[in-house]
């Protein structure tokens, strides 16, 4: 909370505030323009900022503060791009003096002019850190922050002593370009290990702040207008983060079993923490020590404006839900509006839903287990129906899908029994992902009859790839020696038959052959052509046996809904339980030698009066992702303009738009305005105005 005097606190609680805002615009050429209170269009000035990224509590937020303002000023709007806007709020106190509250330093991103009014959309300096990390650096948080700030041209507000006093403030961390995207990411990671958040403060400097754990202000029910108070508290019983270990991210967890019903804060990957195991555990333990002190009730409310409230402040809401109860709530999001109400949001996870894991959590856990898995995974294939291979088109024989989880060389083997109708070639084509593999055509000449073909391949794959291996085949006619010989033999047979017929004919007509003159007619016979019928190959059902195997492949089994869990409970030491001496008798007799050991069975000994309180066990199971559902339950992850698209239970174009009144200042009486803007809509069917 920005430090203010008691007079200010008294004045800001009055039902009527006398205040003003003024400031300056510094153009890029150094020219300074003043913004006077009367130049600010009523209702146009608002400042929005947050200190957590999503709707759940987290460390390491690096949110960009945003300021919107419309002023009535004659100025070239193009000169305003990148201009610095500094604003201050002045509250008139009881003694007619004024107290100043700086509102922040922002930079114009988008100036828009409408006649005499210029509307400015401005952001704070946090955007200046969106620069890719190129230099690798090692140092303490203060050294790293100093380096980043100098590199990005932003001042650091914290002193070395302040940073060193924070959680994990003196440890050494590493920023590597291949693990950290931008310097803003780097600041986020640093703020995470410091168990705080990063923001641009009212002077325009980067500041790492801790979340307050004690209330700094009471908000009476009179000051609140619209409020929603959660029926649960947000607090934590554990923290989880993934640090770099053996070139990969490995999960580290700290849990306090004595805190019942708390949430587990998943901080995700933090690549700046490296080193020995003890160091990583120490980092996480220190973060957890801070986290355990954070306990608040999520809420959302509007209140009379007070710009001294900062992000991360803990506020006490008095007399909530029409009772005398008070709750502590943490400011995680704040929208301050000049001459309007201030909207404060306190987001936090629901401890009543703590058992529900997000799909991302499940996938990460699954991936962690898979990375450790080195077992050989085997994919097999057999044909489920009879296949007839001809010469006209390729018939699909084998299809095997596989996915890799690490670099590997899968081995592919196939045996294909087939029966040829005629001799000829059989061509086998091996495709990977629909593309013919290099040397992927295998040709085999087969005689008529039964045969089998076996071939082997191996593939070189990178991690996290999915492939489909397909084998097709077709037959090719060839004028083989066999076919030619067969035709020739048939022709010779024809000739012999024709010659024999001709001789018999001559004998029967009795022609004189002693006259000295012999006349022989040519023997006519049929020449048999070579059979050019293309061969066909028949493959019986279930005859093809193909296999693809390797280490580093994803599993092949589809989950059938059955979960089998086995757990071996090791012996449990029970102290203080005495065993009454047991008597054993030994009888000596002559027995045949049957082995080199003697055995005696001691039957179970019942122990009465000993109870076991219970055994806790956790089960982790691998998830099979069977589908993805696009629906409104995931709307927060989707990109669309919710102003124009409804998302209650289905997506559709919004057809109803409401505009509500807000109070504005006037010299006497009271005034409110309903700003109605339909200029961005394609068509308007009706407008209805009502008083509630």
């Amino acid at each position, binding site marked *: 909370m920005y430090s203010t005097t008691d007079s200010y606190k008294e004045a800001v609680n009055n039902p009527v505030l006398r205040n003003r805002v003024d400031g300056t615009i510094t153009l890029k050429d150094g020219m300074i323009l003043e913004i006077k209170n009367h130049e600010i269009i009523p209702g146009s000035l608002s400042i929005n900022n947050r200190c957590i990224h999503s709707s759940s509590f987290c460390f390491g937020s690096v949110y960009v503060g945003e300021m919107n303002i419309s002023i009535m000023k004659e100025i070239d709007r193009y000169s305003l791009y990148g201009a610095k806007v500094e604003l201050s709020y002045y509250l008139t106190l009881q003694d007619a003096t004024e107290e100043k509250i700086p509102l922040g330093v922002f930079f114009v991103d988008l100036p828009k002019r*409408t*006649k005499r*009014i210029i509307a400015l959309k401005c952001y704070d300096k946090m955007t200046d850190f969106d620069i890719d990390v190129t230099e690798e650096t090692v140092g303490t948080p203060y050294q790293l922050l100093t380096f980043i700030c100098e590199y990005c041209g932003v001042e650091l507000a914290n002193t070395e002593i302040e940073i060193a006093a924070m959680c994990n403030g003196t440890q050494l961390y590493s920023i590597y370009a291949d693990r950290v995207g931008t310097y803003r990411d780097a600041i986020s990671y640093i703020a995470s290990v410091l168990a705080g958040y990063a923001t641009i403060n009212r002077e325009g400097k980067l500041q790492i702040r801790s979340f307050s754990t004690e209330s700094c202000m009471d908000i009476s029910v009179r000051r609140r207008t619209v409020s929603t108070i959660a029926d649960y508290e947000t607090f934590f019983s554990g923290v989880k983060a993934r640090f770099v270990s053996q070139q990969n991210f490995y999960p580290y967890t700290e849990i306090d079993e004595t805190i019942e019903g708390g949430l587990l804060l998943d901080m995700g990957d933090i690549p700046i923490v490296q080193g020995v195991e003890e160091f990583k555990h120490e980092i996480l333990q220190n973060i957890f020590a801070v986290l355990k002190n954070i306990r608040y009730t999520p809420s959302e409310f509007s209140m009379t404006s007070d710009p001294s409230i900062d992000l991360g402040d803990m506020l006490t809401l008095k007399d909530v839900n029409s009772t005398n109860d008070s709750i502590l709530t943490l400011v995680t999001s704040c929208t301050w509006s000049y001459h309007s109400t201030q909207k404060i949001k306190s987001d936090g996870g629901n401890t009543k839903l703590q058992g529900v894991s997000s799909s991302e959590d499940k996938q990460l856990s699954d*991936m962690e287990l898979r990375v450790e898995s080195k077992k050989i995974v085997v994919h097999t294939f057999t044909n489920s129906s009879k296949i007839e291979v001809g010469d006209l088109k390729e018939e699909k024989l084998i299809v095997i899908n596989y*996915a890799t989880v690490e670099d590997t060389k899968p081995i592919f083997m196939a045996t294909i029994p087939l029966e040829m109708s005629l001799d000829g070639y059989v061509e086998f084509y091996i495709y990977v*992902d*629909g593309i013919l593999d290099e040397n992927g055509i295998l040709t085999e000449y087969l005689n008529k009859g039964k045969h089998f073909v076996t071939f082997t391949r191996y593939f070189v794959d990178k991690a996290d*790839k*999915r492939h489909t291996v397909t084998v097709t085949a077709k037959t090719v006619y060839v004028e083989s020696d066999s076919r030619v010989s067969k035709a020739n033999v048939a022709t010779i047979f024809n000739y012999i038959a024709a010659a024999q017929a001709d001789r018999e004919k001559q004998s029967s007509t009795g022609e004189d052959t002693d006259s000295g003159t012999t006349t022989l007619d040519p023997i006519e016979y049929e020449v048999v052509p070579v059979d050019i019928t293309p061969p066909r190959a028949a493959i019986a059902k279930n005859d093809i046996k193909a296999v693809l195997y390797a280490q580093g492949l*994803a*599993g092949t089994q*589809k989950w059938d809904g059955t979960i089998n869990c086995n757990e071996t409970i090791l012996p449990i030491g029970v102290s203080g339980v005495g065993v009454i001496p047991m008597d054993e008798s030994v009888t000596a007799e002559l027995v045949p030698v049957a082995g080199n050991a003697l055995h005696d069975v001691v039957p179970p000994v019942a122990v009465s009066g000993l109870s076991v309180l219970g055994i806790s066990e956790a089960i982790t199971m691998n*998830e*099979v*992702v*069977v*589908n993805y*559902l*696009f*629906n409104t339950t*995931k709307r927060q*992850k989707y*990109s669309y303009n919710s102003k*124009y*698209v409804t998302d209650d*239970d*289905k*997506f*559709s*174009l919004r*057809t109803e*738009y*409401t*505009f*509500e*009144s807000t109070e504005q200042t*006037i*010299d*006497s*009486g*009271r*005034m*409110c*305005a*309903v700003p*109605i803007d*339909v*200029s961005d*809509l*394609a*068509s*308007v*069917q*009706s*407008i*209805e*105005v*009502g*008083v*509630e």
Partner: protein
Amino acid sequence: MANYDSVQAIIDAGITNAECLRNNVAQDDGTDTIQGANWFSFKGVTCVNLYANGNSWIGFGSSTEHLKVNRRDAKMWYLYREEGTLYNYYNFIKIRWSGYSRYNYTTEPYKLTYDVIIFDNGTIMLHMIDIPTSNNDGIYALVATSTYTYTVSSTQPDVTFYNTDVGVYDLAYEVAKVLEPYDRKYLIRSDGALYTVTDGTLAALEQTALNSELFATYGFDDLPSGELLQPLSKFDLLYWQDSQDELPSIKATVMATPHSQAVISNAVDLTHSTITGIENMTADCEGDLIVAVSFDGKQTWKAWNGTEWSTLSEEFTGMNKETLEAITFEQWNLLYQGADSFFIRISFIDTTQSVTEICADFAN
């Protein structure tokens, strides 16, 4: 004559400031005449007198059954009258009728007590105090130009009839809302200029500086109609009151059609080790589905045209439901090779379209 600061205060005062006209004397089927007022008219008749009947009805200006409150064979035992002012401005008369819903019973289940308050703005309000649990079977109605029947209960004891025209009323189950007597004015601001409403049309003012005097001089009294506002595209409806009282909440509801919109999913992760492809997709939607997919981080959007994947050049185009659901595993396989994720884009170009769910089944 007492003055009150709210209607609720009039109700809460009970019979404290009232004159007792009938005190524990039964009135069975007869009618008592009560002094009315020149400032109140009912169906165009000035109500010099009011009439209270033992069978639980009130007559305004004539001995006629106008307001029936469990009107049956009842009996009145007490009758009170109070005349006063509200906000030192409005006149009112309150009548307390007290008796039993059955003429020959005087036990608690039959007790019937109510106040009828008439205001000089024509409003009639009924406030029930004792609602009988026995013989509560009479008629509840206001007979004016039309007959307005109503019901009452312990959780809904107040009924107000707002006079909107001669003999015409709006019925509301609430304590009468009587606005405090100060100016309430409206102006419209658009493009820096101010407008008032004259003869049903917008008229621009020369003045541009807003102040209370401007409202008092040029402001108009009633909320503007939608037809009047519809030609404006960007404007402020301004309301001013000559009081520091809490401002009312004014809401404008616009029925409109936006320009075409797209909803783009988050990156659908395909890196999970159990996913080996997309088997098919199905859609639960109404109207025309327009869907496209991107496997290159939203750089290009693609649709299956029946023979191949084509790149879409226009923003709000894509496949229909039939095409999407007919895409086979092999056809999906052509597109997603090498991608770690993909995006789904649904386009909306008219208000008949809605999408409840798109399901992408993975091959495992």
